[in-house]
């Protein structure tokens, strides 16, 4: 188990990477779209700290935090977003598909809900191979209303697989409050009984709370106790994507959640624990430096090689579909 100060630093690095991504997007250096996870850091960092290196993680288009929490460097992530040859997916994936397979972070998927069955399959595979790995799918509140969610949870429950379904409930699906399109108050947790699964609604902004809950669920899964549904309540600091100013969110709500910023909460706990302010400041400064260096490195990296457009379709590396 990692010290809180180290978890704090990881969150700080993610936060700054997201800020950098936003700035680079606004500066026109990032094309396409981004879905920033600033505000969600505690879920990724807390969960990762409760998992083993050989456990599997699946994320959504809002997945920068999970890639970095699993060990992707800000540089390779930003390089990806900036269409650089050094991008983590060779600039073929982009912001929505950050993947760090060698850290068992098995991808970010941009079709809502699609990765839940994949995580079930990874857990199934672990069982069949006789390991005690677990698989974790992180997904949004909005994903709980799509068919794949239902099929995944039922299959995982019936086969009693070591998989964790972790919902990052940030109260909105894009611009629409989740409550207005969902029949129950806790979109993930309130569905768990429909699959006979245990569930917990947790504070997704408290990194230690997340770690504890995930640790317990992972242990149960490793012990053959089957899947768990965790619903981590959190909030995104930016709009849904790109330049969305998120005007649809009441000011009061935004203010209250910003007060519960996961970094603020962690900092308060650190001070409580007697960690000196300067040490925290040093960690912040370190995060700042790491990300600044990452931005510089990504900026000066070579552009993606156009020839890469025609590789990686098939296992032999080619894109040949006919003779």
């Amino acid at each position: 188990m990692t010290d809180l100060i180290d978890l704090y630093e990881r969150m700080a690095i993610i936060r700054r990477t997201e800020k950098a991504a936003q700035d680079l997007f606004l500066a026109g250096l990032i094309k396409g779209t981004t879905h920033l996870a600033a505000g969600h850091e505690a879920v990724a960092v807390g969960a990762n700290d409760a998992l083993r290196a050989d456990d599997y993680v699946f994320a959504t288009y809002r997945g920068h935090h999970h890639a970095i929490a699993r060990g992707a460097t800000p540089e390779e992530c930003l390089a990806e977003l900036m269409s650089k040859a050094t991008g983590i997916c060779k600039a073929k994936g982009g912001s929505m598909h950050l993947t760090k397979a060698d850290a068992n972070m098995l991808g970010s998927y941009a079709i809502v809900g699609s990765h839940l069955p994949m995580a079930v399959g990874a857990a199934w595979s672990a069982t069949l191979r006789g390991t005690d790995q677990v698989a974790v799918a992180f997904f949004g509140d909005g994903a709980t209303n799509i068919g794949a969610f239902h099929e995944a949870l039922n299959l995982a429950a019936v086969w009693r697989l070591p998989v964790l379904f972790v919902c990052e409930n940030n109260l909105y699906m894009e611009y629409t409050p989740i409550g207005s399109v969902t029949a129950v108050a806790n979109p993930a947790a309130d569905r768990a009984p429909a699959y006979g699964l245990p569930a917990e609604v947790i504070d997704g902004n408290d990194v230690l709370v997340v770690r504890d809950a995930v640790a317990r669920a992972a242990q149960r899964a490793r012990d053959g106790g089957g899947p768990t549904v965790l619903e981590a309540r959190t909030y995104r600091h930016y709009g849904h994507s790109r330049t969305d100013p998120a005007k649809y969110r009441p000011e009061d709500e935004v203010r209250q959640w910003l007060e519960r910023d996961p970094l603020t909460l962690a900092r308060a706990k650190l001070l409580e624990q007697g960690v000196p302010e300067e040490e925290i400041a040093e960690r912040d400064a370190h995060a700042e430096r790491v990300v600044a260096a990452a931005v510089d490195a990504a900026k000066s990296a070579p552009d993606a090689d156009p020839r890469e457009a025609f590789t990686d379709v098939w296992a032999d590396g080619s894109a040949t579909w006919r003779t």
Partner: protein
Amino acid sequence: MADMTANRESVTVTTYRESVAEGIAREMRRDPTVVCLGEDIGAAEGVFKTTVGLFKEFGPRRVWDTPISEQAIVGAAMGAAMTGLRPVAEIMFSDFLACCWDYLANEIPKVRYMTGGQLSVPLVVRTANGGGLGFGAQHSQAVENWAFTVPGLKVVAPSTPADVVGLMASAIRSDDPVVFFEHKGLFASKGPAAPPDHVVPLGEAAVVRSGTDVTLVALASTVPVALAAAEALAAEGVSVEVIDLRCLVPLDMRTVLESVQRTSRLVIVEENPYQGGWGGTVASIVADEGFELLDAPIRRVAAACVPLPFADALEDQVIPTVSTVTEAVRRLAAY
């Protein structure tokens, strides 16, 4: 009367994006059974801003925000269409049609037939289609061909603001189900606004540029590409006729064959991958029924058979560009 400049200026210019909302609004005004549903289309006015003004004008009983439930969206639209409404369902990105493909492939196009004509499904499924914006493999596909493989769907893909309005009118009024592809890469493009009561019938291709040497058949985003190529080639003395198919079903092969009769040369420009593309069907009809008209091979300029990459520099390699089209036509003209 002879003041052409004044006349020209009086033609209002609008965007393709605005024309989507305008096309829907016109039909909602004339027919109270037209209702819209989709994700974030109401108060938020759509992620592509293609439903701007609808919620405000028609309110929550005509414009419905849905959960992320593509099957429920299209399935409910189908049930509503059977029972007296004319639903217009939005699937945000056309890639997501894969999440409700059962409805497009197995239910909607077949129910009239398999009930011996007892049921009608007058609905429109609209969706933002195509690439060129750096949205990557899962948000950039031109998937008209998925629909094209399924008899029973009308397939519409306009290229200009006026056509968006005119074809939307026909689509919503149609008693047959229509899949309406709005091209993401064209949303910002401009053109003359549709006149009042503008209706473009389904299944009529438009000859958008006349020419004598080569026929260039295009659809949606490839229409401006084809026109730009034709313009470039004109400077070289190659006269290119450009056909905007507008619809894949009904497919206006008469216009294509008549053009090939004049030019004897055919190039087809598709945004989708070569394998399984609609251009194959067009080419095969011409290679059969128009075989004697041809003085040269039929060429298809289509996307490479790869998923769409994120980086612009890579995406440009994959999707047909003005220069790849120009080069293909130039070579064929010289054949």
